[in-house]
């Protein structure tokens, strides 16, 4: 069938959802020999199809793909024109594998736009492909358009690592610049080249017959000879021949001319189209992809969809890109000729056509295309503004890389003339951690903004403030952050006419940055309020990255948040990130680091180490000073807790270095100095330790760690009395929130009392330490002090914290208080809260009725609970239940 019957055929195939025997519906000749050739090639792991444009590579692949979907899963990827962005390419591959029918839906695209780098995306492709139940054939068409060296190198690695059940087909105009010698040595490569793709004379005859064109044998031979079996030439000829009054004459004229084949046939084909089709073809040729709406807009008439469908059915170089046949693109050869013709004959219209296309793309969320066409129209300031408007959203969605990609479309130095471009450039520099360059671009934007008209100046001021905020946050300048937030707030409040989404997003970003700086500067209650509000807002406006970023900073304990609760929040942020595929983002380093820190405080060193490893994995590349400080501190604590003082020293010193990069005062600064000095003391570096603490000042309530460290130095100097003295500064302050420094102070004081020979004061201090540690299960300080000796000084029957004491002694004797046992418990029946309450009395000498009285419940209830506890713990009696409960770490109260 040809385009004469194309209309009906297309209607049929559309009514059947486009899934009819497409090779018939679209007037394609089934080239059985060629399809079998490809079938045979697929015995090898990689097939390379390399031939010049118009050789029929894509047609072959499409025909083959439509045939074989029953038996295998075919993943068909067409590389976008001049694709330079590795991440975008891999995302296309991922999406093609996921839901091919939605591959161009902007909504789906947004989901996919997480800022993973190419390597991470390739890893996903591999795992995605490996998960498929049926064998996968990955087809990459137009590979010559892939211009990213990274992507090509990644593709090379992908081919080497794909599971052996997977087949890859690479189709390209040129031999792809990929080293395939390993596969070649293993005889795992098949090649299909121009000679294989060429139509034979017999196929030429079949093609003509299938298109209901009657031609003499001599005519067929002449046509075949003139086109040299070139698929594009033959197909163009068929279009012109269909319904031609004198096919023989057409072939004779064609054979008689020495014009280049492609150009001659395109010209012939165009001439034979009605004027309206010609006009539509020319005017729509300047976009890389189009749907009927865009085509109508560019052509200035309606009904383009029908034309596009007919052209596709006639295989006239229009290709639909999705199963619903709503998106089309021109075959590149035709597209190139059409564009040349458009510029030659309708040059005046070209800028306006680009403008129309740009507007449409911008309205429909295809910003990169919009920018490209705006630039092509010569409207650089508008293109710059488009970038500025969207770069903010890209930052919000964590697709910082897109800004860099779009900026590449502009000529070098373009930001010198456009504040918007300077702003985007600044955001780009900031994302890469180049603060000075970012500041320079920002200053440039600011000086240009002064000359802008008032409305625009205000918008620029908002964008500048939001970038300044991010920069100030990065370097921890608290007052600067507050100032910028106020400026943003005022500007949002002053202009209720702003689109709601814009002001919500700005507000979300302001809250995030504010919350982060408040966290670092120890204003935890304010941080809690702002970050929670930011997270809720981000959730409401559908910005998962922003929500994750807010929640990642909520995992810090405070007077309102217990250590266990902080840990839960950290885990929640991580779970949320995983749900959105954001768990590899550097911003998650804070959540990982916080969870690790809490685990270490609770004595679970192995658990802490696991989270720390993930923290360093995501944070390594672009770690900011503030999170780097956190990670070094927590890593140092892990080493110190395990008695590895030298490694601990290095980490604490690194934490101190990160702190020095911050302009503002960091809440953890005293802890870092304290830990550093303590470790120095332990290593006999007393002078260095004194120097570390020397001149350290701050508000009294934040100096606990410093006093503790001074006490450690006093003890090393052989002056326990002085230690007891200085520790009073900490021990006399009632704790607010988790008693991190207080527990340590009690323990240090206890040890000092032992040295002074006051066993009763030592026992008192030990009991006070246990009491302070119990609510948050702060086991870590015991590992940091000479607690074993001290706890021995505290007879077991004298403490009301027996379970905690036993756990701590376990840890000090080398058993790690990891949560592996806890995890085992979650697989079992968990104890209910009332059972846990009863459990706590089992190690005591209290009888069941006495426990009942203590808990203010009936003796029968206690009996029921105890029976249930025995069953859940698999215990026969009270002592084995207690033993099992100890193993499972159930026997110490937790505050949460």
């Amino acid at each position, binding site marked *: 069938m040809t385009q004469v019957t194309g209309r009906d055929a297309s209607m049929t195939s559309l009514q059947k959802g486009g899934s009819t025997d497409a090779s018939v519906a679209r007037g394609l000749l089934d080239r059985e020999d060629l399809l079998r050739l490809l079938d045979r090639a697929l015995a090898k792991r990689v097939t390379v199809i390399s031939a010049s444009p118009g050789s029929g590579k894509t047609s072959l692949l499409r025909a083959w793909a439509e045939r074989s979907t029953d038996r295998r899963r075919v993943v068909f990827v067409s590389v976008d024109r001049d694709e330079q962005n590795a991440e975008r390419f891999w995302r296309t591959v991922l999406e093609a594998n996921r839901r091919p029918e939605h591959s161009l839906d902007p909504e789906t695209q947004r989901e996919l736009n997480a800022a993973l780098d190419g390597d991470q995306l390739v890893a996903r492709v591999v795992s995605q492909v490996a998960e498929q139940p049926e064998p996968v054939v990955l087809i990459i068409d137009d590979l010559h358009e892939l211009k990213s060296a990274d992507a090509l190198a990644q593709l090379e690695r992908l081919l080497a690592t794909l599971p052996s059940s997977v087949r890859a087909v690479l189709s390209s105009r040129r031999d792809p610049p990929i080293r395939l010698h390993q596969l070649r040595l293993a005889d795992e490569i098949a090649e299909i080249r121009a000679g294989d793709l060429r139509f034979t004379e017999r196929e030429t005859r079949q093609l003509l017959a299938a298109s209901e064109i009657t031609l003499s044998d001599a005519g067929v031979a002449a046509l075949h000879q003139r086109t040299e079996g070139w698929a594009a030439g033959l197909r163009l000829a068929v279009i012109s021949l269909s319904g031609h009054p004198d096919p023989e004459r057409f072939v004779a004229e064609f054979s008689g001319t020495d*014009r*280049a084949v492609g150009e001659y046939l395109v010209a012939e084909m165009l001439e034979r189209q009605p004027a309206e089709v010609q006009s539509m073809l020319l005017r729509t040729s300047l976009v890389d992809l189009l749907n009927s709406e865009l085509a109508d807009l560019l052509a200035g008439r309606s009904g383009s969809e029908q034309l596009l469908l007919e052209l596709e059915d006639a295989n006239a170089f229009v290709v639909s890109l999705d199963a619903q046949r709503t998106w089309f693109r021109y075959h*590149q050869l035709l597209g*190139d000729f059409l564009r040349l013709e458009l510029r030659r004959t309708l040059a005046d219209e070209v800028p306006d056509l680009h403008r129309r296309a740009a507007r449409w793309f911008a309205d429909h969320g295809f910003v990169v295309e919009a920018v490209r066409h705006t630039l092509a129209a010569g409207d650089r300031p508008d293109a710059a503004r488009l970038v500025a408007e969207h770069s903010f959203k890209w930052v919000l969605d964590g697709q910082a890389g897109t800004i860099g990609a779009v900026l590449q479309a502009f000529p070098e130095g373009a930001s010198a003339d456009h504040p918007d471009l300077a702003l985007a450039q600044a955001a780009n520099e900031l994302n890469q951690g180049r603060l000075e360059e970012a500041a320079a671009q920002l200053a440039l934007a600011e000086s240009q903004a002064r000359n802008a008209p008032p409305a625009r100046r205000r918008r620029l001021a908002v964008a500048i403030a939001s970038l300044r905020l991010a920069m100030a946050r990065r370097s921890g300048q608290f007052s600067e952050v507050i100032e910028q937030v106020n400026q943003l707030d005022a500007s949002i409040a002053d202009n209720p006419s702003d689109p709601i989404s814009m002001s919500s997003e700005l507000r979300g970003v302001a809250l995030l940055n504010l919350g982060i700086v408040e966290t670092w500067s120890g204003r935890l209650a304010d941080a809690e309020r702002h970050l929670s509000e930011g997270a809720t807002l981000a959730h409401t406006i559908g910005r998962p990255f922003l929500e994750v970023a807010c929640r990642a900073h909520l995992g810090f304990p405070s007077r309102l948040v217990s250590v266990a609760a902080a840990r839960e929040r950290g885990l929640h942020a991580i779970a949320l990130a995983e749900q959105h595929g954001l768990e590899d983002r550097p911003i998650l380093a804070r959540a990982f680091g916080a969870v690790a820190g809490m685990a270490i405080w609770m004595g679970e060193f192995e658990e802490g180490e696991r989270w720390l490893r993930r923290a360093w994995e995501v944070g390594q590349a672009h770690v900011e000073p503030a999170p780097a400080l956190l990670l070094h501190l927590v890593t140092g604590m892990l080493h110190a807790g395990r008695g590895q003082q030298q490694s601990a020293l290095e980490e604490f010193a690194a934490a101190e270095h990160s702190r020095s990069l911050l302009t503002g005062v960091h809440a953890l600064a005293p802890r870092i100095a304290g830990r550093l000095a303590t470790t120095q003391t332990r290593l006999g570096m007393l002078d260095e330790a004194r120097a570390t603490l020397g001149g350290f000042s701050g508000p009294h309530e934040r100096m606990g760690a410093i006093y503790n460290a001074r006490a450690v130095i006093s003890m090393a100097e052989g002056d326990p009395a002085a230690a007891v003295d200085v520790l009073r500064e900490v021990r006399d302050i009632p704790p607010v929130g988790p008693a991190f420094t207080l527990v340590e102070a009690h323990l240090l004081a206890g040890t000092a009392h032992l040295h002074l020979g006051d066993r009763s004061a030592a026992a008192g201090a030990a009991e006070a330490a246990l009491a302070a540690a119990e609510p948050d299960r702060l086991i870590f300080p015991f590992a940091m002090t000479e607690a074993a000796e001290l706890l021995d000084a505290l007879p077991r029957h004298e403490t009301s914290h027996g379970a905690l004491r036993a756990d701590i002694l376990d840890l000090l004797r080398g058993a790690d208080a990891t949560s592996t046992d806890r995890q085992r418990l979650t697989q079992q029946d968990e104890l209910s809260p009332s059972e846990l309450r009863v459990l706590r009395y089992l190690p005591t000498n209290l009888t069941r009725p006495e426990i009942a009285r203590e808990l203010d419940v009936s003796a029968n209830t206690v009996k029921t609970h105890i029976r249930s506890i025995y069953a859940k713990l698999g215990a026969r009696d009270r002592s084995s239940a207690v033993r099992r409960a100890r193993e499972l770490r159930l026997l110490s109260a937790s505050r949460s």
Partner: protein
Amino acid sequence: MPTAPGLYTIRIKGRVGATALSSFPAMASEMSGSETVLTGLLEDQSALFGVLAQIEALGLELLELRLIPARSTARESSYGHPSTGM
């Protein structure tokens, strides 16, 4: 890799028409039998590969590519301006 401008001739199979020729603004064309000969001063290798890519894209058949050796004494004066072709 030489980066100095060079005068190139490129032979293409068949007569190339106005549409296709409009994509080689830096080259002058003439017919030679049933071949088209494009001649022009190309700024550097990247300009040359640009022309080759265009030939490929339009499905033209490349027959020959030649750099005309420059006489070092007269290099400046004899080639004219690239945009005018000769």
